[in-house]
C-alpha cells in the first residue's frame, strides 16, 4: 500500500487530497518582528523585485510564487525567515507572552524557536533543545540572523531534558515539534512518497511519546504544551496524545485556528483512542493548499 492510499479512509475527499499532495508548494516567508515590521518588510520585498502575496490567514506570512526566500536584502537583514506556511501554526497556538519561560523541545533549525522568541518580543527565556549535534549550528545561525537574544540552546535528548542550568524552574509553555515521518511535507519533497515505510512510523513513535511525556513533566501546573507533527499517521499523532493522557496529569483543550481542518481521529486500524483526541486538528494539503500538519494543545493540570 502506498502512503497516500493509507490515509484515504481518513479524508473527506480522497481525490482532492491525492491531487494536492502532488502539487508543489510555493515558498513562503515569515516577517520577523524582532528586526522589522510587516509594512517595511513588504516595501523591501517590493523594492527588491520579489513577487509576494500576503497569506490571508496569517498577517506575517508572504508567499513567494517565483523566488527562493534567501537571496534578497530583507532576508540578509533578518527581516524574513523562510518557513513553510502551515508550520507557523504551532507557535501561534502556543502563543507565549513576553517574559514567560518557554521550552522548544525539538528546536533545530529554529523556524519555530525564532517565531516564539518574536512573539515574546525577545524577552523572558526560550530554551531550544536538539539531539542532533549537526543541527545546533544552523539553529544558532538562524537565531542570530533573526536577532534573537533570549534563547539558550542545549544539546541533549529531549526525553532527558535537564532543568539544572535554568534554576530547576518549570516552564510556562512548551512546544513539542517532534521528529516524524514527514508525510505532510510531500509537496516540498516528493521523495517522501518513495522512501515511505511503515517501519519508519513505528520506529519514531516511541521517541515522540518520550518527548511529550517529558514536556508535560517540566511544565508548571496550568501551563500549556503544544504537540505538532507534519505527518498524517495516527500512530505519530493521536496515539502519542493517548499515551500521555493516560500517564500524566494533563488534558487536551479546544482551540481555534483560521484554517480548515479535520478533528483528531479516535479509531485507527482496530485501536481506539481517548475521545478527547478529537480536540486535536488535522490539516490536509487540499483543505487550505498547504503542507499537511497535526497540532494539539494540552493543559497541564497537576496531580
Amino acid at each position, binding site marked *: 500500500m502506498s502512503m497516500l492510499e493509507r490515509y484515504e479512509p481518513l479524508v473527506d475527499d480522497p481525490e482532492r487530497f491525492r491531487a494536492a499532495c502532488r502539487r508543489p508548494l510555493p515558498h513562503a516567508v515569515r516577517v520577523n518582528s*524582532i*528586526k*522589522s515590521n510587516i509594512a*517595511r*518588510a513588504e*516595501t*523591501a520585498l517590493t*523594492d527588491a523585485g520579489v513577487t509576494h502575496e500576503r497569506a490571508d490567514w496569517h498577517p506575517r506570512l508572504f508567499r513567494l510564487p517565483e523566488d527562493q526566500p*534567501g*537571496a*534578497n*536584502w*530583507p532576508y*540578509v*537583514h*533578518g527581516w524574513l525567515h523562510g518557513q513553510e506556511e502551515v508550520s507557523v501554526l504551532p507557535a501561534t497556538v502556543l502563543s507565549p507572552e513576553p517574559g514567560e519561560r518557554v521550552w522548544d523541545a525539538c528546536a533545530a533549525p529554529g523556524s519555530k524557536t525564532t517565531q516564539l522568541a518574536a512573539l515574546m518580543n*525577545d*524577552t*523572558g*527565556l526560550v530554551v*531550544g533543545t536538539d539531539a542532533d549535534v549537526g543541527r*545546533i549550528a544552523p*539553529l*544558532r*545561525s538562524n*537565531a*542570530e*540572523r533573526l*536577532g*534573537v*537574544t*533570549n*534563547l*539558550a*540552546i*542545549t*544539546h541533549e535528548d529531549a526525553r532527558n531534558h535537564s532543568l539544572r*542550568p*535554568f*534554576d530547576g524552574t518549570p516552564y510556562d509553555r512548551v512546544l513539542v515539534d517532534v521528529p516524524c515521518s514527514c508525510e505532510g511535507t510531500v509537496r516540498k519533497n516528493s521523495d517522501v512518497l518513495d522512501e515511505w515505510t511503515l517501519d519508519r512510523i513505528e520506529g519514531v513513535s516511541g521517541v515522540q511519546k518520550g518527548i511529550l511525556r517529558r514536556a508535560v513533566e517540566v511544565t508548571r501546573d496550568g501551563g500549556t504544551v503544544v504537540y505538532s507533527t507534519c505527518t498524517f499517521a495516527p500512530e505519530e499523532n493521536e496515539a502519542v496524545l493517548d499515551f500521555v493522557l493516560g500517564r500524566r496529569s494533563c488534558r487536551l483543550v479546544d482551540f481555534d485556528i483560521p484554517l480548515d481542518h479535520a478533528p483528531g481521529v479516535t479509531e485507527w486500524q482496530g485501536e481506539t483512542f481517548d475521545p478527547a483526541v478529537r480536540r486535536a486538528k488535522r490539516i490536509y494539503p487540499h483543505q487550505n493548499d498547504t503542507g499537511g500538519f497535526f497540532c494539539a494543545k494540552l493543559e497541564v493540570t497537576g496531580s
Partner: protein
Amino acid sequence: MSDDGGPTNVGTRFDRLPATAAERTVSGRATREAVLAFWANRYGIDRAVFADHSFWERGAGKLWAFRGDIDSPAKVQGLGMTVLRTRQEHWKPTLEATQRFGRHATRNCVRLPQSAAERFLAGRDQSLDWDGDWGYLLVTHELAGDPEPLGVGLYVHGELRSMVPKGRRREL
C-alpha cells in the same frame, strides 16, 4: 591559564563577565563595564540599550549577549548571540550585533550606496572616502526608506574591508 590560579577560560562553557575589573578572576576577561563603555565610546550606543542583557564569554575572547540571566558557568550550546570579539587590541563587533543593536549608534557608522553595499555583502573590499576614525565601522545602507545596519567593515588606508563572515556573504 589564569595567572592568579583562579578559574580558567574553558572553551565549552559560558561564563558571565564580571561587572568590573575588581571582580575579575580570569585574566584577560572583559568586564561588563568595559563592554558597555566600548559600545558607548566608540559607537555612541547608550548603555541603557543593554540594560536587560548579560554578557558571557565562551572560548577565548568571544562575547555573547543574553537577554536575561542564568547561573554562571552555564553548560549550554548557545546563549543569546555573539556580539563582540575581545582579547585583541581592537575589539570587533559582530555582524549580528550590528544588525540587532546598530540602529542606536550615532558615530563610526558609514552609509553605503546600494552598489557599494552589494560589494560589501559579497565580502569584497573597496575604497572609501571617509575622514573619521580608522578601525571597525558599522556599515549601513538604505532599506525600505531608512538606513539599516548591515555589518562591520574595517577602515584602513582609504579602504573599507568587508568583515562579513563567509557564511553570511551573498551575491545579490
